[in-house]
Each structure stands twice: as C-alpha cells, then as structure tokens.
C-alpha cells in the first residue's frame, strides 16, 4: 500500500514517474474510467476549499466518486475520538483517504492506522506533497529540472513549502539560492541535510543581486509575525517585493512561481510579464492530483 505523506519519502524515479503521469493526464489522452467504482474520502478537519476542489475534480475526471466530509462534520466525528480511530473507521468506507488536518504530522499518524492509502493534503504548517509536486510540474513545463539555477525567496526558516521544494530539488542537478531576510534563512539542519544529498545552498539577502542568474524564482510570503514591529516588517517585505523593476535584465526563460494566495510579495504589474507562471501553477493542481490518485488506487 502506497501512502503519499511527505516529499522526503520520494526518490527521484517516483517523482519523475508522477510528473510524467500528470503530463499524460493534462494532455487528455487517458482512461476516463480509470478509477470507476472507487470511492475517495476527503477528510478535511480544516477548510481548504481549493485543495479539496482540486482533489474532487481530479477524482471525478478519473470516473471515481468522492465522499466529502467538511470541517464542521469532521470536527463532530472527531469529538472525543482520536484521529487514529477516525481513520480506522473511515478506512472501512472508502478506497483512499485525502486528509487535511491542523496538526503537523497528522498524515503520518493516519497512515499508521489506516488500512487504505492516505494522501496528505496539508497537515498544519507541515508537509503538503501535492503542492510540491505541482511546483515541480510547473517548472518542468518550461524547462528540464536538471542544470538549472533556482531561487527560493521568503521566510525560509519556517516556510514548509520552501523546505519541501528544496528537498525535492535536491534529487535533481539544481543550484539552489536561498533568498531570505537575516534570521529567516533555511534552518542549519536542513542545509546540512541538503548538502548530504548533494545540493549546495547559497545564501543571499538581496534578491536583486541574484535574480539575473536565476531560471526559476519561487516566491513565498514573509510573515508579519516574524518581526518585532510592523515598521521593520514593511522595510524588509518591501525590499523583497518583486516588481517590473526587479525583473530588469533577467534571463528570458526566468519563471516566477508562488503557491498562492499572495499578498504583497508580487506587484500585480508582474502578472502580465512572460515570467509570471503562478496562475498556471495553480491550474496544474488537477492533473498532478490525478496522478497521485491513480498512483494509490489505479
């Protein structure tokens, strides 16, 4: 039985296979009854409309059915019941479980008790592997994943999307540039681990100094809460904001990604440049999730 819990559990060939499958699904030439007769439960202990819709859409496109449990019902299921018990029970109703839960590590726990495959659709600030897969998929649409310069910008200390992407990229021949305010750099342990996986991480504090070297810039939010006061937050956030001016002199093939929703990280004037790929990125959610569903149930 195959669970999809954390990007750490993947080897390169698994990722390549899933990305290839997603490409096939996006192309439209696939068996529309691939998951006919299969039932997927969407177990959402916290609201995440986009993620839930894209899983439901992916399941429907493959001919399968969803049982959806929204956050209110899920919380009543969970009243006085452990997640372990809920998952054991729901395993008896369906062929796979997509789990969204506010506690970090919830999906790992669920996989220990479920008797059907569990797909992690985000656990608290923790892992969200389908997001990372669609990030990779979006890069791959524009270029090969080997031999590229990738910048990850934002709160790299706490941003798990960034950690997860860095992990995945360490399976490829990628030069990674970490672009973060002082104090919000990648955790030392992570850098050390990435190094052990053969990837050097170069640190930068000024995006303007490195952006011309990049093929991919992955932008994440810098949280207000990380700063002692609003003033210092705005100073930092504005120096990391991507505007048409920041993009002067960049490579033609540079693509800009963002897991969305964005706040002020990217000037809307950037949206119309050929570099902006974040809306395409969010559209890729369905084929990528089709690949995941067919992987665990197909």
């Amino acid at each position, binding site marked *: 039985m195959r669970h999809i819990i*954390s990007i*750490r559990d993947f080897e390169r060939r698994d990722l390549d296979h899933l990305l290839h499958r997603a490409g096939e699904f996006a192309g439209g030439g696939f068996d529309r009854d691939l998951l006919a007769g299969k039932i997927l439960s969407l177990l959402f202990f916290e609201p995440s409309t986009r993620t839930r819709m894209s899983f439901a859409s992916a399941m429907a496109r493959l001919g399968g059915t969803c049982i959806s449990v929204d956050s209110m019902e899920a919380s009543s299921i969970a009243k006085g019941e*452990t*997640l*372990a018990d809920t998952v054991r029970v729901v395993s008896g109703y369906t062929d796979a479980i997509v789990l969204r*839960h*506010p*506690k*970090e*590590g*919830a999906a*790992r*726990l669920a996989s*220990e008790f479920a008797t059907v495959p569990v797909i992690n659709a985000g*656990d*608290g*600030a*923790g*892992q969200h592997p389908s997001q990372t897969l669609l990030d990779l998929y979006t890069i791959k649409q524009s270029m090969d994943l080997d031999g590229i310069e990738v910048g990850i910008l934002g709160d790299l200390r706490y941003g*798990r999307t960034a*950690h997860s992407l860095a992990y995945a990229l360490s399976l490829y021949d990628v030069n990674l540039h970490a672009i973060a305010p002082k104090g919000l750099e990648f*955790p*030392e*342990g*992570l850098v050390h*681990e990435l190094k052990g996986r053969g990837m050097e991480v170069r640190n930068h504090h000024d995006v303007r100094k490195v952006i011309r070297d990049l093929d991919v810039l992955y932008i994440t939010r810098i949280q207000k809460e990380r700063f002692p006061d609003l003033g210092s937050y705005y100073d930092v956030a504005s120096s990391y904001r991507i505007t048409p001016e920041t993009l002067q002199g960049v490579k033609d093939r540079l693509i800009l990604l963002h897991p969305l929703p964005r706040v002020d990280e990217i000037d809307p004037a950037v949206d119309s440049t050929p570099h902006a790929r974040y809306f395409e990125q969010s559209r890729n959610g369905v084929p990528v999730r089709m690949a995941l569903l067919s992987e665990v149930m197909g």
Partner: protein
Amino acid sequence: MTPGQNRTLLVSQIKDGTVIDHITAGEALNVLTILGIAGTTTESLSIATNVASRKEGRKDILKISGRELRKEEVDRIALIAPHATINIIRDYEVVEKKGVTVPPVIKGVVKCPNPGCISNAKEPIESAFEVLGKELRCCYCDWMITKNIASHII
C-alpha cells in the same frame, strides 16, 4: 593515594548489576531519567558526578545494583552520553563491556517541542525521532531538535 583508589572511594563496587562509565559530565541524572529509573526505584544506585577522568577531563558514573540493562535500553542514552560504556557485573567481575550506539529512531524518550505536533495530541502513539548525528528530527512533524536534547526528555 593513586587515582585508582580515589575512584573506588567515590563509587563503591557492586556485586551484580550494571556500571555505566564515561557518561558526559553532568548528564548522570538525565541518563537515569531516560532509563526510567526515577526516585521510586527499588534498585540501589550510586551516582558520581564530575569525577576526574584522564580521557574526558570530567565524567559521571552510575552504578545500578541488581539490574542488568539490556542493549536497547542503554542505547537510548547515547543521545546525551555518546561515549558511555556499559559494564555488566556479576559477582564483582565485569562479564560484558560494551559501548553505546545511537539507534536510528528513538521512541517514547523525547517529547516533540512543537506544540502543533500530532505526537503531542491525545493519540495512541509514542513520540518518535529520527537520529541525525547530534540532532533529532520528529518523525511526525519534522521538527529538528538541535541542542539541549536532555531538556526534551519525557
């Protein structure tokens, strides 16, 4: 007085049991906590802390009478006392001497410092950490414990 005599004065010999030597100075009580030997134990214990040692400068020693610790039990202390040696004593003789090796995953020893971690919720699981050199990573939430491991012991 020779150094050898000095040591026997500090910690008396035991007839049967386990002597844990070369514990990182100051960690003896944490070692006891990890081994689950708290104040309520029936074992007779001798604890020597900050003993002069030619090898480490200072070290702690623990002697536990009447109990032979198993390898899996003792390996858990490797986290905070990586140079410890375990001597199994029978009738005043060392019958077995072994070092400690850090297991790849330690369960139920360290509490995850992340309040949002599922291992801190009411679930039927033990905490679990992957051991990466001197650091630990929570198997559930990926939280890294990089220092003061002893302060997170359950």
